[in-house]
């Protein structure tokens, strides 16, 4: 679960989405490197369509205001 101090909303995340958010919390990243970091953090087991999952999580986070695009 995660609490957004900006909006006061509480969100329930699945394990993979939580990994994505945790990775972004450490430092900003572009999508390909974020996918690589999340995949590395998950270890050797097979995770189907990790790229699709990470991209969907980022999109959802953006919609609810948990992440934003960093200035170039």
């Amino acid at each position: 679960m995660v609490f957004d101090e900006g909006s006061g909303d509480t969100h329930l995340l699945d394990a993979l989405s939580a990994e994505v958010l945790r990775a972004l919390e450490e430092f900003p990243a572009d999508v390909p490197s974020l996918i690589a970091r999340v995949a590395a953090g998950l270890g050797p087991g097979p995770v189907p369509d990790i790229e699709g999952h990470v991209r969907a999580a980022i999109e959802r986070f953006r919609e609810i205001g948990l992440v934003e695009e960093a200035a170039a």
Partner: protein
Amino acid sequence: MRLGELPRRDLAARLERRGVDLDTGAFIVRLETPIAALVGEVQSLYRDYPLDEGGGLADFHVAVVSPPGPLGIRRWWRQQATVILDEDRPFEPLPVDMAVPMLEWSINWCAATRANQYVMIHAAVLERGGCALVLPGVSGAGKSTLCAGLALRGWRLLSDEFALIRPGDGALDPWPRPISLKNASIDVIRRWAPDAYMSMPVPHTNKGTVAHVRPPADSVRRARESAMPAWLVFPAFEKDTPPSLTPMPRARAFFRLADCSFNYPSLGIRGFRTLSRMIDGCDAYEFRYSSLDDALGLLGALPLPTPAA
């Protein structure tokens, strides 16, 4: 001194002139009323409560008075009662017969709208063996019936309406007050505990017929003893249903709990951390029941919680 030790005439005089400060555990409530019909019920329901004679500040000031009639004079025909909370009159006047439920609802309202030093959950709370059982629930879930049933058979009552969670350490502060029963629950509890004192049932309130059960004296005596939450049980009364106690995932319990909170949305990260800690330290269940005997047996056998990984 306890309220019940005051002779009725003295109590009536004090209630009318300067009020009495009741030590109800989490809060000191200053109660004033000139309504004679209310004095007897106050004396009976709050018999075991210590009077705070220190002359200090009360947390809530609740006055139940008769409003003037249309010509500005007190009327004796269809007499009404209204509540003054500090300087406010937040409720419409009601017939004077409803003064007891009105008083109780008003005290609840004070806490629900002001006591933001706590994370407040709409829940009954009881304790046994140092572990607190929290029964959150919307009206009609059977929370108060279950609460009265357990409190009158050995569980310590902390509250029938409010789980008052301290953000600092997650402990639950007791606020034992008269237990509010509605409609069919009144007779259920009369049969369950014929010796328990219950106020005169008041029909035709907006919740139906309402009566209040005096809390056990031991629960009032221990109203300063907090307890750590151990079990979160979401009750649902279902007639003629065999009892079932089904473990609930912690994440779902968190959101159910937040839904039952009076002030979670306004407390920000403090509320989130407090509820998270509570969820991590408790086992959560959904509980369906149709008889108090079943409930007493099942809830009395709850295992100690397994802390979250």
